[in-house]
């Protein structure tokens, strides 16, 4: 499996990370080095093996379905780069 510039561009887009056009070939090469390393996994016989979902064989704890928190608008917005009138502000999304 070899990653070309188009795939690198697509992955960067999916990850929402801006990569300049002239940086894509080097990125593709890095992916190829890492994926080449990962491809060793193809040697392993995994027939009939379940993929691990939880490393400790325990049932996750459940809690009462009740409100335990809230009314912290100020704290929630405190670290926002742009908060106005009690909301997170972002660039225009809909025309």
């Amino acid at each position, binding site marked *: 499996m070899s990653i070309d510039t188009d795939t690198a561009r697509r*992955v960067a887009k999916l990850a929402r990370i801006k990569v300049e056009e002239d940086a894509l070939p080097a990125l593709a090469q890095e992916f190829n080095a890492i994926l080449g390393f990962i491809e060793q*996994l193809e040697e*392993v016989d995994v027939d009939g093996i379940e993929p691990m979902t939880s490393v*400790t064989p325990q049932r996750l704890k459940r809690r009462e379905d009740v409100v335990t928190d809230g009314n912290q608008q100020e704290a929630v917005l405190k670290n926002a*780069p742009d908060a106005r009138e009690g909301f997170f502000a972002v*660039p225009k*999304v809909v025309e």
Partner: protein
Amino acid sequence: MTDLNKLTIADARDALKKGDVNSVELTQACIDAIDASGALNAFVHKTPEIALEQAAAADARGYADAPALNGIPLGIKDLFCTKGVDSQAASGILKGFKPEYESTVTTKLFDNGAVMLGKLNMDEFAMGSSNESSAYGPAVNPWKVDDRNLTPGGSSGGSAAAVAADLCLGATGTDTGGSIRQPAAFTGTVGIKPTYGRCSRWGIIAYASSLDQAGPMTKTVRDSAIMLSAMAGHDMKDSTSADLAVPDFEAALTGDIKGKVIGIPREYRLDGLNEEITKLWDEGAEMLRAAGAEVRDVSLPHSKYALPAYYVIASAEASSNLARYDGVRFGERAPLGAGDGINEMYEKTRAAGFGPETQRRIMVGTYVLSAGFYDAYYNRARKVRTLIKRDFENVFADGVDAILAPATPTPAFGIGEVSDANPVEMYLNDVFTVTLNLAGLPGIAVPTGMSSNGLPLGLQLIGRPWEEADLLNIAHSVEHSAGFVAKPQKWW
């Protein structure tokens, strides 16, 4: 008393109890040491006001019937959210982030009377083995053999450097693939990654949630036992934290390991393994044998596949966990051009805020989870993970109590020496440590010797799940037999 910052946690606790010293004096000694340690770049956000306030409170509380860490000054890895104090995971994208809440582990430490000296350097989002991937610049190892600055390892490099240089009595670390044990080994300190679920992950900035665990980094095994008892325990806010009683780990340090069965995994004897590491490992086995343990060869046949499986799983989880850094709710938003919409905001913010290694792992994770590759990469890696865990289960079922292995393939290397061109080369640092994270097991690094050029070397012990008490006791025995007492010469 002079050089109070050089005390171990256990000795400081005893001195505080006897009234030979108070926490304000002890804390001030650490603050002075930190202020003179700029060249190490270990403490990246200092909190002397908080520290002195907490120290005064500890002194006011008194030391009769005091909690375990009353008045003990500690450093906190930048990955832990600390209320009102910068917590940016060494990332540009979280610049200026001051959490409105406190992580469970730091809350527990403070409830136990601990004093926070500040936040410690690390690799960005805990992704790295040399502390070079940090928005603060690299932390520097206090150990030196020539003009070069050496890495303290990573990702908990600042924690390891700070403990080794006596800037604090102990520090918190986190370990996703070796991030506590590798830096401990590089700096002649002790670090334990407990069983997955032993410490709550709540309020620790997430890298790979199924692998991340917090643990202590200290000068001695006893200090790790004391700190771990304070950090561990069930937390309703982390559904993967185990609802199990936390033992008094210090009480388990009897030094008696007669009859314990120690496994030596033959697959860890890599072709071309550093001769000094091989020798150290053999000597460690001999120490355990001399202390009355039975040492036998064991096999962990899938070890070779741990690193590639790790890079698939950790990158996949990172791509998901780090999706939250979007320039909307916290941290920095990149400057936008006229007409830029929300997608440009995401893409520019993430390109400017994340460093190269973080970007790489997010994108590798995105790729292995993308349609068409999910089965070939992600599901296959999770199946291999099942096999790796089964290897350990088989060894433990045969009566093995703990496994002895090297902690790192080499001693500390120079900053900038492992090439950036091939990221895989850096990943190989974790070859002995990463298997445990995949299997959820506890592991501890203990300094047991020196390289020929005068750098500390550490061994690793791997225990059964939830049996950190037994593991610490075996480590305590090795520590005692090795008698490692060397300290770095102060140059900073």
